[in-house]
């Protein structure tokens, strides 16, 4: 699964730490999600896309091998 959290963060001009605080996880978790090392749960994915006011699939998208 890919995501464009980094891009969305840049648009909204918030840091990893601020996003982490907004969804109630640690900064490391946001960092690993951004670098595609960790796949968030559905609840966390929904929370993140709500921060950006975007539908889920605008932030997270499936890859070929998924």
């Amino acid at each position: 699964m890919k995501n464009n959290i980094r891009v969305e963060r840049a648009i909204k001009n918030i840091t990893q730490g601020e996003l982490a605080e907004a969804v109630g996880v640690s900064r490391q978790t946001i960092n690993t999600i951004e670098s595609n090392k960790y796949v968030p749960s559905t609840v966390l994915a929904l929370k993140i896309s709500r921060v950006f006011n975007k539908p889920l699939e605008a932030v997270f998208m499936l890859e070929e091998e998924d």
Partner: protein
Amino acid sequence: MKTRFLFPYWCRYLGLACILFHIPILLFAKSFGFDPHDLPDEPGIFSPRHLFFIATTLLMLIGLVLLVFAKEKIEDEQISQLRLDSLQWAIYLNYLLLIITLVFADHQDFKDILRLNLWVPLVFFYIRFRWVIFRLNRAVREDAKLS
């Protein structure tokens, strides 16, 4: 995400204190040439030998459990995942060690095997868990340097 069955964050320090506290008791015993096995082996739970056992082994074990199963400051879903992974590694290693020791030990050594089993899973779990968190933190720091 709610993680059940974990101790509060401050238990980490209580656990550490328990572990550190049991060392002087052991050293005290060693430096005075005091061997707990020389104590009279009376039946009952308040015999000197059993009290010494409680003061050392159990104190260390309780401290270890408190330390290992204390919550992180921010206990999120990734941490839960890491706990699960690390626990699996620890169980694998423990059973590997158990099998090896069972093969190469005769029945005289069973007490030592038990003693090894007391702390190996917990200590290995904790080392692996901390190591992964350390690596995650390092990745965050390197990322911050780049941007």
